[in-house]
């Protein structure tokens, strides 16, 4: 059995009286220490999949097993426990706490994890050093560039030594050069053995992936189908814009 196994995943959102199927019959396996890129246009359900894998939401049906533990039957406090111990999130919008300096943002998740204060401070310093921010420990997020903020977010994601890092369009708010820098750090983490699942619609990230999952309209599709469809989708998007 793989490190992460999702079987027959289905997720339906209720929008008023209407039901929106975000995920339909998704089956994926993710190996330990892999770098999985989930590709798809907006609305394809890729973020929903990521949140289900991270225990932030529950599937409508189907099962998710991570390291032998089934998520779909967990109570909300068990899911919180799972997120705390096993998952590190990186978001497109960074989501740093504006009043906390960089080091406090990295310490923040450890506060929920009963790590002694001396130890977590040392750990936060080491993590920020890893992402090249050892001279920015006491800067507030507003005093940091977007790329630096995202690096703080990566350090924060690593705080509780998670088994998986889930990144939701981590380069979406950054220009190409800075985005590449972020990808470089994530790649480095993968080479150190971290399992990474990254959601994006940016095909330039594909070369780093050990596995690519293509998604369209809530389903996983083969590469060929994706590529033939994506030009259509792109045209539609341009029309809308």
């Amino acid at each position: 059995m793989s490190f992460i196994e999702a079987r027959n995943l289905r997720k339906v959102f209720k929008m008023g009286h209407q039901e929106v199927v975000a995920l339909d019959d998704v089956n994926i396996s993710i190996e330990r220490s892999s770098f999985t890129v989930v590709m798809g246009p907006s609305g394809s359900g890729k973020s929903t999949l990521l949140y289900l894998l991270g225990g932030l939401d529950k599937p409508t049906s189907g099962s998710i097993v991570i390291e032998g533990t089934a998520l779909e039957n967990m109570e909300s406090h068990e899911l919180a426990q799972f997120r705390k111990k096993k998952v590190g999130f990186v978001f497109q919008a960074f989501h740093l706490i504006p009043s906390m300096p960089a080091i406090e943002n990295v310490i923040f998740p450890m506060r929920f994890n009963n790590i002694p204060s001396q130890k977590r401070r040392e750990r936060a310093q080491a993590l920020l050093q890893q992402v090249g921010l050892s001279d920015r420990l006491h800067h507030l997020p507003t005093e940091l560039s977007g790329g630096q903020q995202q690096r703080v977010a990566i350090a924060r994601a690593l705080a509780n030594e998670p088994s998986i890092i889930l990144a939701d369009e981590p380069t979406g708010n950054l220009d190409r050069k800075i985005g590449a820098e972020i990808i470089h750090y994530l790649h480095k983490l993968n080479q150190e053995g971290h399992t990474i699942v990254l959601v994006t619609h940016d095909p330039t990230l594909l070369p780093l992936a050990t596995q690519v999952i293509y998604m369209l309209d809530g389903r996983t599709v083969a590469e060929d189908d994706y590529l033939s469809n994506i030009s259509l989708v792109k045209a539609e998007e341009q029309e809308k814009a």
Partner: protein
Amino acid sequence: MSVLDLLSVIFYNLKRRKDRVLLTGLGVVIGSASVVLMVSLSSGLQRGATSQFGRMSDLKRVEVYPGMGQMMMMGGGGGENQPQMTTITPSLISKIKQIEGVDEVILQENLKTSYTIEFGRLTTYASVVGVNIQDLSPLDFIFAEGKPKIGPGVAIIGGWAAKNFINPNAKMGQQDPQQPQLLDKLVRLIITKSGSDGKETRKVVYLRIGGILKEARSSQDNNIYVRIEDVTSWNEWASGKRINRNKDGYDSLVVIAKEVKQSTAIAEEINQMGLMAYTPQMVVQGINSFFTVLQIFFGAIGAISLLVAAIGIANTMTMSVLERTAEIGLIKAIGASDEDVLRIFIGEASGIGFLGGVGGILVGWLGGQLLNMVALVYFAKQALKGAGGAPPETIVYTPLWLILAAGILSTLVGMISGYFPARRAMQMAPVAALKHE
């Protein structure tokens, strides 16, 4: 999540929205300041009202007089030999001594004939009171001069009597005489008895003044204390009859309680024996219960503004939760449990309440001090105009318990106001929260 962690997270969250915390906290400041000021004012008034009852030792005193039966009250007037009269007989005294909490029972007898007290050419008005103790320490008088000891021919004089000698032969407009130094000097007690034929006989007793009391604005100011056996013999001489204590009893008793709180119960028990007992503690208790009601009333008025402040906190927190959906999602994503989220948001609301409370205590206390200063100036002016009575030292008094209670109350107000917004934050689905942007 440890309390310390919780506090530092709350600190960072409040720090971020300084102006909002300030404005919302201001409501709490006004609320708790008005509670503190209102209750301080009624506490101050209470202190003013009870302070005239003086020292704690005064509150231990129970004064006992012969009791008049119900029949007598309705009949109006009465004589000392009426059967309805309950006199202070030795058997009742021994019962009183057995009452729980009674420390000491002092017998008192007044000189019941006409008499004057003279020193040189001067005279003063004073009541001659005989007591059955040689050492007056149990009465806990404050002495201006001398010792609390009486004996054969040695008396103690009250503060007012000692300072109010007049010249009975003074002409109109003549200045009051200079007051004599009485300590260790002899005063003359001139007792007059009128015989059945109308002929007056005088008896002159010399008393050395062994001690002079400080003025206490109490009945002792007007007394001269001597031995009870002397008063008894003078009374017997004046009336020509032997006194039967089992029938006539004593004039009065002073019962000293071991503890202030026991004096009311002692007085009530003595009253049930048919005697009349009175302790200033009873009045103090009455005043205290009146002021407790006043304090609650004043406090409730102040609490109305605290209620308004509570609505302000609830409003701010609701807004805050709505604005911070992404942050709530993040907190959940990094592993905070629902309880952690609840505690963080309730903690923030409590923090606003606490900070407002601290500010309110400060403002309320300062307001009280300001009021005291204004009042002091006002009373000083009144005193210059010649309005009588000693002015109260303060009119606003902030007790320590009030400061603690106001702090706890404000924090509690924040906590309660924050509960529903915090619950809303807790119930927010993390994904919905994160997708908000």
